[in-house]
């Protein structure tokens, strides 16, 4: 017998009292009986004292605590899991009172659950009411760790793991070792995987992650399937199926296929392999890919409303070994990784209204943070005419859209009619005010502007006011609030009255509304205005706008119709309209370029024999711009600028047959454009930077080895690292040195999508761009073989869950027997007193 503590024995001092009483006892009893009664009284007191010392006895016990872990993830066949639950029920019913158990459902975590509740949950899952979040992973390691929480001491402990043995949170070896180290026995009951036919692409491993143009890279494609079945592998590159390979899939083993991918495009190439199986359950795991960086010719993207206009430029650049890809006005990639596939971007004839704010910010980041090149060509949709005034793209161009106007430029009277109804409250009305203020800024001192807001009634925000008083006009605009109904006609009529009396060569109205107006003779009014040489442009904002009406007004009013669902584009629309209405940004007269710059890109070009250009967009150079070519009037023609890590060029004429028809046949055309592009293309020199990525739990760890041109390790490099998530969130990451020429960087794995990493050694001007794409959840990978540790775990045989379970050492408390013995002694003592 052992004791937890002996401190309570101090209370034995109280025996002095009965002892003294016994010594001077007045009781007339037979001495033997008296002594025996006294002894029993004392014995009882001693026994109670000993009980207070919490005595225990070590012995072995076969009582056990069983933890049932039931894997209910997607990779496990649901019927197999239900059968396992029935088996667990039978086990628990067979356990006697000394044993205990607990049941944990395992998926993307663990849940303590009663068998009936779990059965009801499984029933819901089988009917297609899925708990995708919980079933989307098999965190077996975490579950094994957590299973220890409820294990009591003093009982033999066993964990029974019902699973297909495919953990998604690491290898089981350490978790099993930890359990065994704590004396917990672990058994496995393999569960069948998905019974429905399923195939998945497990991985695509290239033989090299860096290649050169023309090189063939071998791709090892691992495909898993739970049935023998034919399938087709599709090799996809840039959205195009390059090859289809018929294959035979064998069940439950790694099917590895090889194919060669020709590297025909420079830059980061994403190669994907898709499996198309005869029958398939989960579509999410049917594709996987890899990124191969291909070094070679510069790759440039040009975006033009009419792509065919750039055929000549493309042909000319091809002869100069520059690959030019031309896309339509919606062809600009929507994300930074898409832009990073190119070394430079040319915006040839693309209005800003077709680009989202996010695209603009991506282009800006592409230039400033990733060293990409940007070129804007002149057109009626470029610079201010295109609505680029005060946009992120204008910030990375060497020229601005404001310009000195011609003296003969006609004056402009403009009325802005702005919907201020209740539906415009919040961001839309703020952007409308911003748009109106931007329009005021673009006016010349000879122009005039009035602003009318309307809800149920028109509200004259400011009368026709000269643009010289821009301050008061903008202050009035800032007071526009929102609320009320939508009645557009009175406001338009009032605007018409203002324009009728305005003294200007050009009279223009812009109407903005997001809703359905009360009826009115709009077409009649628009026709009347057109007859009086006024023009009306309309902007329909949002899905609730009356598009038909707005279109009709713009058509009849000989203006332009804009339709947008994004209030953020309203300022661009207004600036474009203002510049377009003033009709003075373009100068269409023949001219020859004048060279004033000395940049290398002009070397070997004899501008003295260059033919005429037939037009250009009038702009003004920024102070930091490096002007290379100007027009005969001194307006900017070709300007360069450096913004962050990248370079940008602005060519205010164009490269198509509209204004550069004669240039297309000029010998220097291709060479000049090749030299311009070579001056701005991304020159990300990543030589000497070797990066490896490893996953550590929920983090990604990048090990960077930095070498110089001679192959020697570089220490104390001046690193800057930036992570750009797909949603545009930017994080700066610290890079710390951990060894000789060795550095480390850590970041959290994204929950979905991926990110782009920019790693820069500023001192050596080295830049490396890394992409991370989170593949489909590991749960759907359907690896052919279960975890090696799981495969080696002893199995639970038969129906006896306690079979082969070694007894455990337990400490059995003797408190109760001692207390009861104490009471018995007292009772016996009383008996002896009274007999």
């Amino acid at each position, binding site marked *: 017998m052992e004791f937890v503590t002996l401190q309570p024995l101090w209370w034995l001092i109280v025996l002095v009292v009965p002892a003294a009483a016994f010594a001077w006892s007045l009781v007339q009893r037979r001495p033997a009986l008296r002594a025996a009664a006294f002894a029993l009284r004392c014995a009882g007191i001693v026994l109670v004292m000993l009980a207070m010392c919490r005595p225990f006895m070590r012995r072995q016990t076969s009582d056990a605590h069983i933890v049932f872990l039931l894997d209910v993830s997607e990779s496990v066949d649901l019927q197999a899991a239900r059968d396992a639950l029935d088996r667990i029920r039978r086990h628990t019913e067979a356990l006697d009172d000394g044993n205990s158990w607990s049941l944990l459902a395992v998926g993307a975590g663990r849940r303590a659950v009663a068998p009936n509740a779990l059965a009801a949950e499984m029933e819901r899952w089988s009917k297609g009411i899925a708990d995708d979040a919980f079933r989307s992973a098999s965190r077996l390691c975490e579950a094994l760790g957590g299973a220890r929480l409820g294990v009591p001491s003093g009982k033999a402990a066993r964990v029974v793991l019902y699973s297909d043995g495919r953990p998604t949170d690491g290898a089981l070896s350490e978790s099993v070792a930890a359990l065994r180290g704590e004396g917990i026995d672990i058994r496995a009951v393999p569960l069948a995987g998905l019974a429905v036919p399923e195939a998945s692409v497990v991985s695509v491993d290239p033989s090299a992650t860096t290649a050169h143009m023309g*090189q063939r890279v071998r791709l090892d494609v691992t495909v898993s399937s739970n049935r023998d079945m034919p399938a087709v592998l599709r090799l996809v590159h840039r959205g195009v199926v390059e090859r289809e390979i018929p294959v035979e899939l064998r069940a439950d083993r790694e099917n590895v296929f090889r194919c060669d991918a020709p590297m025909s495009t420079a830059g980061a190439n994403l190669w994907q392999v898709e499996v198309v199986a005869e029958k398939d359950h989960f579509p999410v795991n049917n594709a996987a890919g890899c990124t191969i960086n291909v070094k070679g010719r510069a790759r440039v993207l040009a975006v033009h409303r009419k792509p065919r206009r750039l055929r000549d430029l493309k042909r000319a650049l091809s002869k100069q070994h520059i690959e030019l890809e031309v896309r339509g006005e919606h062809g600009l990639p929507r994300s930074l990784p898409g832009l990073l596939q190119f070394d430079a971007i040319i915006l040839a004839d693309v209005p800003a209204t077709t680009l989202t704010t996010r695209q603009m910010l991506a282009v800006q980041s592409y230039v400033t943070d990733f060293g990409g090149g940007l070129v804007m060509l002149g057109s009626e949709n470029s610079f201010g005419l295109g609505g680029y005034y005060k946009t992120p793209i204008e910030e990375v161009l060497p020229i601005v859209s404001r310009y000195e106007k011609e003296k003969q430029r006609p004056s402009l009277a403009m009325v802005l009619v702005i919907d201020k109804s209740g539906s415009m409250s919040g961001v839309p009305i703020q952007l409308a005010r911003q748009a109106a203020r931007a329009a005021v800024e673009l006016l010349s001192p000879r122009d005039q502007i009035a602003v009318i807001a309307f809800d149920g009634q028109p509200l004259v925000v400011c009368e026709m006011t000269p643009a010289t008083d821009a301050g008061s006009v903008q202050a009035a605009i800032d007071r526009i609030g929102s609320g009320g109904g939508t009645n557009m006609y009175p406001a338009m009529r009032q605007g018409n009255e203002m324009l009728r009396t305005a003294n200007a060569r050009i009279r223009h109205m812009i109407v903005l509304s997001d809703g359905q107006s009360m009826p009115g003779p709009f077409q009649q009014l628009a026709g009347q205005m057109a007859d009086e040489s006024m023009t009306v442009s309309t902007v329909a904002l949002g899905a609730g706008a009356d598009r038909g009406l707005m279109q009709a007004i713009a058509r009849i009013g000989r203006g332009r119709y804009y339709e947008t669902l994004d209030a953020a584009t309203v300022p661009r629309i207004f600036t474009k309209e203002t510049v377009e209405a003033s009709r003075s940004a373009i100068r269409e007269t023949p001219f020859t370029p004048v060279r004033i710059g000395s940049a290398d890109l002009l070397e070997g070009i004899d501008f003295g024999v260059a033919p005429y250009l037939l037009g250009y967009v009038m702009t003004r150079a920024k102070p930091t711009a490096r002007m290379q070519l100007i027009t005969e009037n001194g307006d900017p023609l070709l300007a360069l600028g450096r913004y962050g890590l990248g370079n940008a060029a602005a060519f205010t004429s164009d490269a198509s047959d509209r204004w550069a028809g004669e240039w297309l046949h000029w010998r220097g055309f291709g060479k000049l454009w090749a030299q311009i592009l070579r001056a701005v293309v991304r020159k990300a020199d990543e030589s000497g930077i070797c990066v490896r990525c490893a996953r550590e739990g929920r983090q990604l760890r990048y090990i960077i080895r930095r070498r110089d041109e001679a192959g020697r390790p570089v220490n104390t490099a001046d690193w800057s690292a930036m992570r750009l998530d797909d949603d545009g969130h930017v994080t700066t990451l610290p890079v710390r040195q951990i060894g000789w020429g060795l550095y480390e960087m850590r970041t959290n794995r994204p929950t979905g999508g991926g990110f782009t990493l920019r790693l820069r050694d500023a001192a050596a001007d080295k830049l490396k761009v890394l992409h991370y794409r989170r593949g489909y959840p590991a749960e759907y990978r359907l690896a052919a073989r279960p975890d090696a540790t799981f495969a080696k775990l002893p199995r639970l045989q038969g129906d006896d869950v306690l079979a082969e379970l070694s007894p455990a050492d337990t400490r059995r408390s003797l408190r109760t027997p001692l207390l009861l013995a104490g009471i018995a002694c*007292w009772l016996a003592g009383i008996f002896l007193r*009274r007999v």
Partner: protein
Amino acid sequence: MTLLAPGMLWWLALLVPLAALYLLKVRPRRQHTTAWFLWDLALEERRSSVLLRRLRDALSLLLMALVVVAVVLALARPSFSTGEQRDLILLVDNSASMSANTASGHSRLDEARRTAAKILRGLDMTHRASVASVADGVRFRVHLSDNRRELLEGLEDITPTDLPMSTDAVRELLASGGAEPEGAEEAAKRPRVILLTDGCFADHHTLGDVELIRIGEPAANIGIVTFDLFPLPVASNGANDTADTHRLGLYFHLASSHDTPVDVDVLLCRNSRDDVIKVCPVTVGPGLGQPELFTVTGGGPGRYVLALDVDDALPEDNRAFAVVPRRRPVRIAVRSGVETFFLARCVEAFGSDLADMQLTRNRAEVVLSCGQDISDGEEAPAEIIFRPSGTSPFWTSLGEADASADVTRVVLSEHPAVRYCDLSNVTFSGARRIEPPPGAVVIATNARGVPLLYRCSAGDRSAYVVNLDPVASEFFLSAWFPVLVHSMVNDLTGRPLVGRTCLPPGTRMAVNAAGRAAAWTLTAPDGSVRKGQSTMTAPLSQRGFYRLHADAGAAAGSAARQQRSLGVGGSPPAEVLLNNDGLADSAGALRRGSTPGQWLLIAAVLLACVEAGLYHRRKLG
């Protein structure tokens, strides 16, 4: 009040036999006497006190009944807790910083164990508790138990480690799954977790509901955060090259919790502390300073110890261990005629002390050939072919030699083969009109576009074709010849870069380069051996030198990979700086003191003693 074992109340039935005992008439004692008249008087007096006598019996019965009730109630384990019936998990941080000495001379871990023992001793043990240690993972020493002695013994089992603290391990242990939020009922079932820690880790604010008890005060310490050795190219002395010309790049990063800069001697020793090969006097500023870089002459492959010559609160972080591996040379076979001499000398130049390349006759990884028909001879995974001739899968057609020299154009100057050499000045005499196979990467051409240097593959084999006659070009005498051969060999064989020579504690190593599961045996610095079969080893948890034996599982001829030494050392800055000023105690009150049952038993004993005393003084009974 609640009763934790209400079934024990059935023992109140003992009151029945107790009461029955008091129904027994006490047998009067027969006493012979001659003075009957005196006794008659006494009995007369006694007859008048029958009521008193009965009351005395009742009082005795009452007292003894109270005793029985008190004991039975104690058996039923009464508790005054108002609802919280949560188990308690005592987590004791035994990470590296807990080995630091406190002002009292004991370590922080000793202090943590003492504090935990005090907590356990004070608990009323109406609920269960468990004892676990946490460093890189949570290890339960005692599972849920209400036996204080067992829990105290579990505390004694907690030993210090060299591992950093991982809050992920605590969070994962306590995490539960499910999308639905936890209700009050579920929250009540979760155990209460108290972590006794010195707080020398970065993210204690992420521990959620874990209650913290701060151990230790900030202490002055300097320690090694990272340590690395890198084999540098030998400053060649030609034939006089010896082991002493080996050079190592020494990198280490120290951290100091002193308020002012401290001068420290840093010793680099080979194998043991006695063989000092370099002493670096450095001044360590407060916090995490700048890394230090030195070049060490006379260091080659082997084991090294970096030691700080300083007395501070945590001596364990003053040493770190690194192993500079012996580079396995690439096995190269030479197949040539008269040019064999030049090719062999080139290989040997990178052999011996550099151990980059090694001449071999069989099982070559790379074959160097010149003008030979390579369809003869053993195929190797990679080839470097000078002066191509005959048929080969590495060209589709081979024309006549072009005797005239021509301008060399390097098309891909950043290619690994030519990154470190300038071929534009090399005359590619004897170039033949050769057509590379599809997928070849042409690195250099002449003005007529004839490929002069290209890399290609045929099946599983890769090759470089150098389209020149090295004798006619006098290329063997060019300084770029060995550089080009070395670069091509490295590119073809994909030599892995030298990894970290000093691994942080807790690192798990890949068992083999192929990334496949294999049997492994890991011998720790203290001699303990651990075995397993997996893709990764167990964590390297001790500072010192490990030995790893593993099945190859990799390409043939990787005997050297089957056994290797590993050096472990360094600590995260937080574990070195020992600064826990930012950590505040957040542990709530714990139910301490004696349980109500203990007091009931004491009351029962006292009542029993009082009853016995009064009985013997004939006041009752």
